[in-house]
Each structure stands twice: as C-alpha cells, then as structure tokens.
C-alpha cells in the first residue's frame, strides 16, 4: 500500500507540475517514453507514460516499458522513494546495487531530471526591480553583480548594494579613528565588463567542426589555425566527441586523452573546472595536464622551505594583518607589490578601500619596483627602482646593513630561527669573499648604495610591514621571473630578521586579513564541488561529509607538467616536477611522461578560457596544435579566441550569467585558503540563470552530461540532477539554511555572512610564533603529521623554526646551485649579460593584467578595449600597449602610439607604444595574457597583432628542480613596425640558459 501511494503521489506530482509549470510542459515534449518503477520480483510497480507532452500512468508491472527503475525489494523501494529524499541513502543504495536501471542511460537521466524538475516547479529566482526589470545575482572573477534583465535581455549590471536586512559590517579602531567599509560590494574592471562579454560578437553560438576535418578520413591536421569551421548539430558534436573518446581508448589505451583547462573558470562551485569538469574527466579517464603553481611560482618553490605554508602555496598567514597594520605599523615597504592592478585576486577593489585608510593615517610608504606601478601612483611614497630580476641582490644588501650595524631583532633570530650564521657568513662575504654590501648590489640593481642604506636604517627603526607580491605575503610580481624563488626567499628572510609576527611587523599590504567569521561553512571553488574527487580537491575535508556524492577516481595516473605539454606532444616524452602542496616535500616528486604502461596522448580536450596568451613561449603551443601526434582536438569554450582556432571540434559553452550556480565571492577553498579575507563582506550568492543560453550554447554541465550519456555514464555523471539540483544540495550542505531559507536565497540572490564578533577575532598572523605560543590562528595546516614538536607547535619546517638555511633543501639536493640551502643571488639566466641575447637589450616585464583577468575580459570586442591604458585603436585594430621609457623611445625614434614590433628569437608582436617616465631606462612593460592571438600570416611564422606578448617569454623553468614559469621577464628589442608580416623563429633558448646536449632543457 505504501509503495502504491508513493508512486501514485509521483503521478500526481507530474500532473501538478504539468498544470503549474511551463518549463515542465516543455520538457515533456522532448520525449515519448514509457517509464516503469518496479520491484525486482515483478510484484509491485507503476508505469508512467509520457506522450506528446502529456503524462498518464497505470498501476502494475508492464512489459511494454522502454525504461525501468528496478528496486531490489519492496521495503527498499519504499525507503528510497519516500520523501523527503535522503541523498546519502540514495548514493549508498546505488553503490550497493539496491536499485538499478534497465534500459538506456539517456532515458534514465531524462526520467530522473524530469522528477527533479517536477519537484522544483515552485522555485522562483530573482526580484522584480519595479521598473519592469528583474534583478538577479551572480558572482564574477571581478566581484558580485546584480544583473537587471528585461525581456530576456541584460539591461545593466551593478555591484550589490546592501540593505538593512543584511549583516552589519566590521569596524576597525586605530589611532583614534574608526574605519568601516562601504555597505556594498566593489567591482574590478573585468567585473564591470560582463554585459559586453555575454553579448560579444565572437561568442560561440553553435557547435562547429573544422571544414576539412573528417574523423573517418583525412584530418588535415596541418590546417589547424588556418581552415574555417562549419556548424554541426549538438547530436553530431556529442556523437563525434564520444566516438573519438572511445576510439582513443580502443586504439591506444589508457592515457591517450589529455585534458587541459585555464586556471580560472567563470565563477560558481558547480560549474567550476574543479567541479563538473573534474567529475566528467575522471569518469572518462584522462591524462591530467598538471598545473604549475602559476602566479605563486617563486613562493612555492622558494619561500616555502624557510617558513612552510605549503598549503598556501608558499604564502604567509593572512589573519588579522589588516587590523595590526593599521594599529601598529609605522611603515610599509611594497616590494614588487601592485595590488591596485591585480586587486589581489577575485576581490574587486576591496583592498583599495582599505589602502585608502593608510593614506588617512599617513604611514611611511616605500615602493620597490622597476615600474612606478599603480599602487605607487595611488599611495605615493618613495620609489626605488631596481632592474628586473635583481631584487634578491638588493635584499641581501639590506640584510648586510642590518648585520653590520646591528639593526635586527637578535633575540628573535636566536630563539625563533635557525641557520642564521650560515646565511650571515654569505651575506658578510665570509663564505665567498664577496661582501653583499650596498655598493656590491649597486652594479646589479642600479639602485644607489646610499639609498639602500637609508632604506635599511629606516626600515629597522620603524615597525614595518613588508608587502611582497600582489597579496602582500605572496602572489605575482617578481615571483614570476627567472629569479623568483631567490626573491621570495630573501623576502621572508628579511622579515624574519625584523621579528615576523611582532606587533606591526609582518607581511601584508592590506589586501588580506579582514576579520571574518571563518567558521561559517560555505565551500570555496576548490573544496571539491561535485567533482567526487577525494584525491585532487579538498572534497574529503568537509564537503564530502556534508554533500554526499558518488566518488570519482581518474583511472589514468599519467600527468604532464603543463609547461611541458608542447614537448610531450611533439617529442613524445617529457618530465617535470609536480605541484603537490600537501607537504613541503611534495614538490620534490617528478612525473615522467609517458607514465609506465600508459599511452602517449593523441587527443586533447581543451576546456575553459583560452590559455595561449598566458603561457610562456606561446609559439610552442601553436606548434603542438599543428603536430600530427595530436589526432583530435576538441575545445569547449565560450568565445572564439586564442586557441579555439586550433580545434577540430568546438563546443560552445555559455557564460555563468546563462546558467545556474552557487558560490561565495573570492572563496577559492583549498586553492587559496582564506582568500575571502580580501573582501570586506563575505557574500554568498545564488547565481541565477539571468537569461537563457545564447544561440545553441549550453552550460558546461549540460555539455558534459550530453557526452557522458553517449558513453553510458550519464546517470553516474549527473546522479539524476540538473545543475540547479546540485546548487540546492550545496545550499543544504552549507551553513546557509540556518540563516536564510532556500526560497528567500533564490529570490534575494545573496547572503552576507555576519562578521566575527570583535572579541572573537583571530589573533594576528604569526604572533603565536613570535611569542612562542601554540598556533592560535584558525587554519588546519600543516597536516597533523607534519609537525615536528607537539601538534600546533612551530612552523612546518623540520626544525619547526624559521630556517635561514633550509633543512628540506639540504635533504633534497644540497648541491643544487640554482637553489642552495641558504638564499643567494645569482644572475638571471635571461638578461643583458647573456652574450647570445645582446641583440635584445631591453628587459620586458609582463606582470598580470590590470583591466582583464588573464584572458577574461580582454578582446571579445568588449568595453575594456576602449580603456586607454589597455588597448589603442589604430587603423582598424585594437592594439595591445607596450610601455617604454622616454630615453629608450627617443633612441629608437618611437613616438606615442606608434605601432612597434616587439621581438626576439621566439616571436614578434605588434603593439602600440606608450612613452612614460614610470619605467627606468632599459626596461619595458606590457601586461601578459591577451585573449587575442592574431598571427598576420602563417601561425608561428608571422607577427602577431593580437598582443600575445607571451610569444616572447622564455619557456625555461625558473630553477631546474621545479615546474615553474618564468615568463615575467623577457629580453626583447623594439623597432618601429615597417609592415613586415613574416617572422622567422630561431632557438628559443640559448646554451647559456641551460640547454643540454640534446637541445632541450630539463
């Protein structure tokens, strides 16, 4: 009787949904099918007949069913079907074969998603704004948005303005002043740019196939990047990709399919690459293109050995530093730290709001950067400009002054650190006979010795914050150039000499450290999402318990270090270190490709943003795409740009304004613990599908589900869910339901987490360490087994102290001359002193972009193109900007906005010149990561006018024993462009740069 009632209830639910909901009626029109639910013994059941948009039903077991859901026993059927549905019970039942589908996977997914649609017919999202528009919410990489929509069209996008219902804001009291953040969110330029990105003319609106690609005949691989495309149907596209996936496995075996994504997808915990994409890729089995710790680089391969923090990719603790800096610091040294350009990461202009408070307090500020950067422009202060890559020498000279003039915290060094003597022997010249004096550094850096002494003395005499890198304690800047690991190492050694963790003495630039209530649980994008992956995300830590899901495991253990992907494809073999942040020692392991017994890669599944503009010596990727070893390339992308032009099949994904998701602003989960401490309010959003996907584009989730279904993996991949059902599951898994109802959350679109009570705020970062307490900041790292002393005592290092001389490096390879146990200075392997590079005398620095976010926001005919400092419209094209010093321009006869050729042996890019005094002579500046790659002739053999300056950057890893990009610096020459299109590529790396006999650098 119970089962009868439940199934009859299901029928009534379908009827109700049909009556009530147009989306449900539309769904029913997509399939005529007879679905049966029954017990395995055939004694109980009911059939549902879906025909021409109508549903009818009969009790009993029928042989005419197209698809059956079969439960092992009557009792099990009752238990699993009785509302409310318990997700853990469902999943356990699936794993234990308590029910199974009979029929096609496609029908199984359709029926399950139909049930989910029926259950959710009352769900309404968005709020009527009163002017005919509906206001929705979403989150972007550049901040949260209100999205106003009318008649299926986005009218406007704005920041979120809080109201009185929302939680209060924090206050900071310092020097008799009270600082409160504004009652709204902020947006970075690429966050304020989404309307033009959604409606970009290069949106991919239909699946496409290269015109001369025939999967069953001639593939014409050499025409990748040259031939055009023709539209195909989704059915054709799904069939084609699914059949290539099967063929790869059949013909070559495990490992033949590689998958590669950009580092930042469109926002949202369900649709993220570490979520839906990982679930799908694990389900089909792929070779992972393993990321380098991009943007962290020097911190991960360098600083981590001195102070631990492997789970922060070598960065420092963020807690309380914002408040401590305002209250206790007297001076800040910004060193290769330009947060006004990069806004930390993801956080709009939240940090700028707080750095403005620094101006009000009149702290002494120093900027060390070859470029008078945007932060220096905003905050003012003393500008010290070392030549690129030479900062470690400057740092050593500061240490030298401190040592010679007794200007450091001797008690701290004696009690909290180890190995100081070895390092001071080097700094004072006892080790190698060369004193690392201010005069010594002057020839390297170009900074006068007197300025170094003045800086060193003032620094030591004041409570000083060191702001190293874009986030102040990590990220970007000089960490991305060839001496990046030397630089981060000297940075942490300097702050250790001054007493890291004492009041007013710490690492930070006001970008991190907002006093949130971190105990309010809402997962970040790397906390596993729907990936099911317990090995490669933080899923196992919390979310797996809170949101049970079918686990996924990638059957292929083959990995390719991302920077070596072209070598792997073209040469058929490569090797390299892996980023494994769990421990300090994780980075010492190497991957060898091909992995034992695995197939080399023959198919590449590219997903997400174009990455061509972001990776070093980008012409290598052009060659890779045109290699016959790559038999099939599929690219799942929103826009037609960068590397989509090298695909055989293009799958058009929609933006996150056209699909449903859920996420928290700037919460990256394990990829960047406490990144949300950059934003002034924790904002969690129901990310509405604001408009239907444009054209025939689909959400990434639906694309993966479509392919998975053709592989019989649809039920496994979807668990019968639509994306919005996963969103509801994540809502339920978080702490949100205790504070806001699902209904209100969908309608209002966001929730502001109340700030931490003032008396419960976390103590300041490293203060516990400075004062010899157990760790009392809220971070569950390092791993419990990675402490040397008692749990919670000391740093992650072997000695549990700050190590000037690193035990981990002594253990691993003490004779590695590129990464010695104590930090030393050695000249960059890319620089004017390299004889083979004499033709290219200019040091080009290419930091992260200011207006676009990697390739997001740039190109696409977006509004950003009109920004004078981003691109310049000349003769019918928006050219990328290269900045050069007045003297360098004069020597070359270059005037403002001349089109110039920036070139070296690796490539040539046509840019618009901007002439400035903000750079020291000999240094030129251009942002990395243009979205456009537009070779004017044959790809790889012609000049690019897209602005892809990474065509010019060196592919060499910073140090031999790392997988570390060094594309922050390239030696180049610049001349006025004479219109020549042809470019002849020569050796991309010289012998002096560490080429071995075979011509490839390990």
């Amino acid at each position, binding site marked *: 009787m119970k089962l009868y009632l439940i199934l009859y209830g299901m029928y009534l639910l379908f009827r109700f949904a049909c009556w009530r909901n147009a989306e449900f009626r539309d769904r029913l029109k997509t399939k005529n099918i007879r679905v049966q639910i029954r017990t395995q013994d055939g004694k109980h059941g009911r059939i549902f007949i879906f025909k021409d948009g109508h549903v009818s039903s009969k009790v009993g077991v029928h042989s005419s069913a197209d698809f059956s859901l079969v439960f092992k026993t009557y009792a099990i059927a009752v238990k699993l079907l009785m509302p409310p549905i318990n997700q853990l019970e469902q999943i356990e039942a699936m794993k234990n074969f308590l029910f199974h589908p009979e029929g096609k996977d496609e029908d199984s997914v359709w029926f399950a998603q139909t049930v989910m649609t029926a259950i959710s017919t009352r769900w309404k999202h968005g709020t009527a704004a009163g*002017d005919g528009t509906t206001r929705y919410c979403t989150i972007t990489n550049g901040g949260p948005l209100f999205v106003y929509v009318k008649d299926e*069209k986005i*009218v*406007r*996008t*704005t*920041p979120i*303005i809080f109201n009185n219902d929302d939680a209060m804001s924090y206050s900071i009291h310092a020097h008799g002043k009270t600082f409160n953040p*504004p009652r*709204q969110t*902020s*947006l*970075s*330029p690429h966050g*304020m*740019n989404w*309307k*033009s990105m959604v*409606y970009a003319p290069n949106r991919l609106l239909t699946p496409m196939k290269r015109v001369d690609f025939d999967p069953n005949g001639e593939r014409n691989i050499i025409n990748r990047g040259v031939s055009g495309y023709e539209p195909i149907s989704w059915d054709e596209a799904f069939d084609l990709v699914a059949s290539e996936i099967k063929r790869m496995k059949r013909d070559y075996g495990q490992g033949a399919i590689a998958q590669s994504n950009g580092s930042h997808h469109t926002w949202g915990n369900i649709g993220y690459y570490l979520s839906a994409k990982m679930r799908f890729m694990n389900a089909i089995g792929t070779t992972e293109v393993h990321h380098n710790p991009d943007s962290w680089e020097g911190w991960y391969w360098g600083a981590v050995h001195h102070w631990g923090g492997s789970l922060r990719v070598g960065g420092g603790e963020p807690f309380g530093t914002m408040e401590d800096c305002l209250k206790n610091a007297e001076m800040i040294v910004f060193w290769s730290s330009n947060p*006004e350009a990069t806004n930390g990461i993801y956080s*709009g*202009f*939240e940090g*700028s*709001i707080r750095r*403005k408070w620094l101006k009000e307090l009149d702290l002494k500020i120093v900027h060390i950067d070859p470029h*008078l950067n*945007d932060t220096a*422009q*905003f905050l*003012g202060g*003393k*500008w*010290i*400009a070392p030549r690129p890559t030479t900062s470690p020498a400057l740092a050593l000279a500061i240490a030298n002054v401190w040592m010679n003039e007794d200007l450091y915290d001797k008690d701290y060094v004696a009690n909290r650190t180890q190995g100081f003597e070895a390092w001071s022997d080097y700094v004072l010249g006892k080790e190698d006979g060369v004193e690392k004096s201010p005069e010594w550094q002057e020839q390297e850096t170009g900074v*006068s*010795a*007197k*300025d170094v*002494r*003045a*800086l060193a*003395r*003032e620094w030591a005499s004041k409570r000083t914050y060191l702001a190293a890198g874009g986030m102040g304690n990590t990220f970007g800047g000089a960490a991305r150039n060839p001496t990046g690991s030397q630089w981060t190492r000297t940075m942490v050694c300097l702050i250790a000499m001054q007493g890291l963790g004492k009041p007013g003495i710490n690492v930070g630039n006001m970008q991190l450290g907002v006093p949130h209530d971190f105990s309010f649980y809402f997962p970040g994008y790397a906390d596993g999402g729907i990936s099911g992956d317990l090995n490669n995300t933080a899923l196992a830590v919390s979310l797996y318990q809170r949101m049970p899901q079918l686990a996924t495991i990638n059957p292929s253990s083959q990995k390719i270090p991302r920077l070596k992907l072209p070598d792997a494809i073209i040469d058929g073999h490569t090797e390299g270190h892996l980023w494994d942040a769990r421990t300090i020692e994780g980075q010492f392991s190497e991957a060898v490709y091909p992995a034992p017994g695995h197939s080399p890669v023959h198919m590449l599944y590219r997903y997400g943003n174009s990455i061509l503009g972001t990776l070093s010596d980008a012409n290598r990727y052009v060659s890779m795409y045109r290699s016959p070893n790559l038999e099939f390339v599929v690219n799942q992308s929103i826009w037609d740009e960068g590397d989509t032009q090298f695909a055989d099949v293009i799958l058009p994904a929609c933006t996150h304004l056209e699909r449903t998701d859920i996420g928290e602003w700037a919460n990256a989960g394990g990829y960047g613990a406490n990144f949300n401490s950059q934003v002034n309010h924790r904002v969690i959003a129901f990310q509405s599908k604001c408009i239907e996907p444009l054209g025939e584009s689909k959400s990434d989730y639906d694309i993966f589900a479509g392919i998975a279904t053709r592989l019989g993996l649809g039920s496994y991949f979807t668990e019968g869910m639509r994306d919005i059902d996963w969103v509801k599951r994540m809502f339920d898994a978080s702490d949100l339901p205790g504070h806001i109802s699902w209904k209100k959350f969908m309608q209002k679109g966001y929730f502001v987490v109340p700030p931490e009570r003032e008396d419960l705020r976390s103590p300041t970062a490293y203060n516990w360490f400075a004062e010899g307490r157990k760790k009392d900041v809220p971070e569950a790292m390092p791993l419990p087994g990675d402490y040397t002393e008692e749990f919670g005592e000391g740093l992650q290092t072997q000695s549990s102290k700050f190590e000037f001389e690193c035990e981990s490096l002594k253990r691993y390879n003490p004779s590695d001359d590129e990464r010695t146990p104590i930090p030393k200075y050695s000249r960059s392997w890319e620089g004017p002193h390299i004889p083979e590079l004499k033709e290219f005398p200019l040091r080009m620095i290419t930091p992260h972009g*200011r*207006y676009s976010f990697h390739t997001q926001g740039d190109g696409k*005919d977006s*509004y*950003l*193109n*009109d*920004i*004078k*400092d*981003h691109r310049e*419209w000349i003769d019918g094209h928006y050219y990328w900007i290269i900045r050069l010093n*007045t003297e360098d321009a004069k020597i070359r006869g270059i005037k403002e906005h001349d089109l110039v050729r920036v070139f070296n042996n690796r490539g040539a890019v046509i840019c618009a010149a901007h002439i*400035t*005094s*903000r750079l020291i002579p000999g240094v030129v500046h251009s942002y990395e990561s243009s979205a456009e790659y537009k070779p004017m002739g044959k790809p790889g053999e012609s000049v690019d006018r897209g602005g892809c300056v990474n065509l010019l950057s060196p592919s060499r890893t910073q140090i031999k024993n790392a997988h570390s990009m060094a594309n922050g610096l390239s030696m180049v020459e610049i001349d006025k462009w004479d219109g020549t299109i042809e470019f002849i590529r020569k050796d991309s790396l010289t012998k002096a740069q560490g080429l071995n006999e075979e011509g490839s650098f390990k």
Partner: protein
Amino acid sequence: MKKWNLIVDVENCTNCNVCTLAVQDEHVGNSFPGYAEEMPKHGHRWIEIMRKERGAGSATDVAYLPTMCQHCDDAPCMKAAPDAVSKRPDGIVIIDPVKAKGRKDLVGSCPYGAIWWNEEKQVPQHWIFDAHLLDAGWKEPRCVTVCATNALQSVKVDDDEMLHLIDKQGLEVLHEEYETKPRVYYKNLWRYTSSFIAGSLSGIRDNKIECLEGLEVQLVFDNENVETQNTDNFGDFKFDKLKARGQTYQVQVIDKGKIVKTIDVILDQSINIGEIILE
C-alpha cells in the same frame, strides 16, 4: 532648491576606469527616451580619464583627471541650441535626443570637449548624470557607486550649501576662465595642474656616500623665500604646487646656517634636479 553637483577628488583617482565601464554598461544597447539615445559600443568616452605624468626618474608622479559633461549653469551648448538643450531644475543639463538630432555643431560648442557625436544615430551625446535613474529613485549616478576609492562623489544640495562645501574642501572647477559655471568640482586639482621642483642631497660620511637627512633647502623666487623644507632620510626634497610659467627659481641648500649650494631652475614643467652631491 537642491541641485546635483559632482565632486572629483584627483588625489583618489587610480585610472581603474570602472566609472567609464559603468557608463558603457548603462548606455550601450539601452536607449532612454527623453534622456539619451543608445551610446555607440566604442569610440565614445562620456567619462574620460586624462593622465598627467610629472617629473622624471625617482621623482615621478602621476595624476588622473576624470572629465565629463560639467553640467554648466551657463552652458555654451544651451546657448547654441536653446531648443534642444535644457537645464533641469536639479541642475542637470540634458541634450534632448530627439530635438538635437542632426546638431553636430553642438560638439564644437562645448569648450570641455564633453559632447560626443553619434554618427549612427546622428545625435550629440554626453554624460547625463544618470538623470533617468535619479528620476526613478536611484540615490546617485552609477559612476559614483562603482568608484571604490571615492574619487567621485555626487551631492544634491542647494547652491549656498555648495558654496560652503567649495570653501571647506578647497574645490575648484576646470578652466574657470571659460566662465560657464560648471557643476562638476575638483578637489586636489593641483595634482594635475601644478608643477614641482625636486631633488636629493648626498655627501660623504665616513668614507661612504650617504643620503643627507635633515638639511634645510629653500626655494627662492625674486629674492624672496617661497618655501623651506628639511630633506628626508633619503635626502629628498620636493617643492610642489608651483605654477610653471618659465620663471627662474633658486634652490638653496643651507648647512649650519650658511648657503652651501645654489641651483637655478627654470620652471616650465616639473623638474627633478636629481642627486646634488655636497662637498
């Protein structure tokens, strides 16, 4: 009668351009009858940020100046087309998108260069202070909402109160000589319009060249002291807020009450004298 005014703080503009993007977001693809036709996707800068680099070498600084329709009370565009351009009681100037059709001449009527010609729609356009949103109950124009550093602020006050704010905050208008009575006011405009003379003192101490801190440096014009400063720990001094008119200044270094060095400086733009080594 309360009227709208915009206050631009040059000190706080970082050239992030989110204000210019907000204008595009609002007006590209949207027409607001009675207020504005659609803005072309590219080529118009209803808010335009101007850049000024001053000095050279280590004494370089940069200021940004957001410019836009100044909503003048005595607007030349209104005089040029009284039928098509009107002043609202709240101070906002509106170029009527229908009545101004074909009036390309209005572009030239604005001495601030803040009127843009829309070739496709054949209509002159400008930043309308988001009057359409204010009329619908919005609290401020969008460029103000998105400005994280508060470089842009809108205030709706009566003219007397505005006079008080001008006085209190030291506000200025751009090109007062145009005599158009703008409703856009600038704070810290000197960052953009004035010039400086900077330099750095060094000398030998204990056989090493050192920055000379705490020395007196005075700026003299026409035998009169303009300003005296003490060098900072880097030996730096910087006399700012000067008007560059090609005039000659003397920079005098004073040690123990005596002038030990005098340098003549012709000021036609900001100057970094560079390192001055004292014997």
